[in-house]
């Protein structure tokens, strides 16, 4: 194995380990909330488990998945060895140490603040330091990705950077912008409070800073799935990418529009104004454009594949696609879940309409469909697609992989469709138990049980996924194909592209302008006059 392959192997296994643990906790949390009696439930165990679930799923799992996949892309798409593998391993060690530190702190009951922190509640400082280490590890990865692309461009003057790598670096650049918000919140507000250096903090400011991160982080998770859509899926389906230019443009649009929209997470907050909420809602509406462009471009790419395989008619090419291939199947299921999740998201971002669903199960359903659905199912498919090259062995059973993907899809729908309904009825988020004796809440009970069944299916699917990867270890059949065959070529492979589509200088400047317009005043207002401070409430108090 090359350095990059070993890095990918280590990073992905760590990601999936965190994922498996979080999955078990997630099912137990749904059980606790259901009318069925669940074991081990106390306020402290429940919220510690929610913290662990969110931390593992939102930070640890995607960060390591994205780092590992990035190393793989940098090596295979650029076709040159990874620069500075020692730095990459150091980043891995740093992130692993941070993840372990955070985990131990959470399970000792000293970090029941959930993954979104909620200052002025403050957890043990080791929780935050652990997360800072995970993020710092990802920053090292970002630099490595940018260096790898720069080196390639120097060696290949005038040639367009391969799309997979271009998109990976777009994600790295976006992630550096994204983490500014949460890093500022942690370093200037929360960690000093956790250390006892500050007894009070400005909650309006901390919420605003976190919102800076909170939307773009979703695109950070999502971009590997989009990389798969644009580069791996057309190849797996036996077609071509419809438009390389549109691919580049899509990733650029994600970079610029996923950042200045975070206030849509604060639509119900009293410390931000109608005017700036409206501005960011309008920008949020535009974020749906790159997603809709992707639906079309990937649809067209698959149409090429379907027609090449003999599909006819307006929609007949769909049936002609090779649905037996996990990557193609996962794409179809991912787009279906993206449709449901995107619908929920459109309602969430709709300015005053957010009041109908804010902090209800509707929102939980939305982001489970986007993250758990679209993102994670493509992580599965990516792992299945690159595991032969990473381990050097052929897949033992495609049927088991397909079953796993179908189970994931079914479980996700069974879980989230009732959540949408319950959310509209007013079922709220983040509680350990409901009072099912209340006449209004009693009616929710059966639907909560249905969603729990969905959760159990998801757990089964997740365990089958781990099993499927382990199966590679017992497989004896060596893997033959070269990894380069993973990526599709476009209908018109670009001979050269304008610098705007081959780098990020122009777009970074635009992000800066947009962030100043969208977030300048909403942040500056906390430094005008006497911005109120709230007393710190320590969750890890030792008396």
């Amino acid at each position: 194995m090359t350095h990059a392959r070993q890095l990918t192997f280590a990073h992905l296994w760590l990601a999936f380990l965190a994922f498996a643990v979080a999955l078990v906790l997630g099912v137990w949390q749904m059980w606790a909330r259901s009318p069925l009696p669940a074991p081990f439930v106390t306020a402290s165990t429940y919220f510690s488990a929610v913290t662990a679930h969110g931390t593992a799923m939102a930070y640890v799992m995607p960060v390591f998945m994205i780092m590992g996949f990035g190393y793989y892309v940098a090596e295979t798409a650029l076709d040159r060895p990874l620069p500075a593998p020692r730095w990459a391993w150091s980043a891995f060690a740093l992130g692993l140490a941070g993840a372990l530190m955070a985990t131990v702190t959470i399970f000792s009951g000293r970090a029941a603040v959930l993954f979104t922190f909620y200052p002025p509640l403050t957890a043990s400082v080791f929780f935050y330091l652990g997360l800072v280490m995970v993020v710092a590890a990802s920053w090292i990865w970002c630099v490595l990705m940018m260096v790898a692309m720069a080196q390639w461009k120097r060696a290949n003057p005038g040639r367009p950077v391969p799309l997979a790598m271009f998109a990976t670096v777009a994600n790295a650049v976006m992630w550096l912008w994204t983490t500014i918000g949460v890093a500022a919140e942690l370093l200037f507000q929360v960690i000093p409070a956790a250390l006892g250096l500050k007894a009070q903090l400005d909650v309006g400011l901390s919420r605003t800073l976190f919102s800076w991160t909170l939307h773009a982080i979703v695109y950070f998770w999502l971009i590997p799935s989009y990389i798969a859509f644009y580069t791996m899926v057309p190849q797996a389906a036996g077609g071509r990418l419809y438009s390389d230019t549109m691919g580049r443009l899509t990733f650029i649009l994600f970079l610029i529009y996923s950042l200045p929209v975070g206030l849509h997470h604060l639509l119900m907050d009293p410390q931000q104004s109608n005017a700036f909420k409206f501005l960011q809602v309008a920008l949020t509406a535009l974020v749906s454009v790159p997603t809709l462009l992707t639906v079309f471009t990937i649809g067209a790419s698959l149409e090429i594949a379907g027609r090449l395989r003999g599909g006819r008619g307006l929609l007949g090419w769909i049936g002609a696609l090779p649905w037996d291939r996990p990557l193609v199947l996962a794409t179809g299921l991912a787009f279906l879940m993206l449709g449901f999740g995107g619908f929920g998201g459109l309602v969430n971002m709709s300015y005053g309409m957010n009041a109908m669903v804010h902090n209800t199960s509707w929102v939980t359903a939305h982001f489970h469909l986007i993250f758990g659905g679209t993102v994670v199912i493509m992580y599965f498919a990516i792992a299945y697609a690159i595991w032969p090259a990473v381990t050097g062995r052929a897949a033992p059973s495609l049927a088991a992989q397909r079953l796993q993907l179908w189970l994931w899809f079914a479980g996700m729908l069974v879980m989230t469709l009732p959540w949408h309904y319950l959310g509209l009825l007013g079922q709220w988020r983040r509680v350990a138990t409901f009072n099912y004796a209340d006449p209004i809440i009693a009616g929710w009970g059966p639907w909560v049980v249905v969603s729990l069944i969905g959760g159990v299916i998801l757990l089964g699917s997740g365990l089958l996924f781990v099993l499927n990867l382990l199966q590679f270890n017992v497989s004896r059949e060596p893997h033959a194909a070269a990894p380069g065959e993973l990526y599709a070529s476009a209908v018109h492979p670009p001979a050269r592209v304008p610098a705007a589509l081959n780098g990020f200088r122009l777009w970074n400047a635009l992000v800066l302008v947009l962030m100043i317009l969208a977030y300048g005043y909403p942040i500056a207002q906390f430094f005008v006059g006497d911005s109120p401070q709230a007393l710190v409430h320590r969750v890890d108090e030792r008396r």
Partner: protein
Amino acid sequence: MNRREASDEDLERVMREVPRGAFALAGLAVGALLAAWLLIYFLVFLPRGMVG
């Protein structure tokens, strides 16, 4: 599992059709999305009354 490269003639042939199907599929999907959003807007959101 035939992954051979498509010939240029094949590609040229299918490109006369593409992206009609993708237009239809994406159009249906986005139409359904907008319709669902409008349904929620008119049937749930507006009847629940003003807030501000």
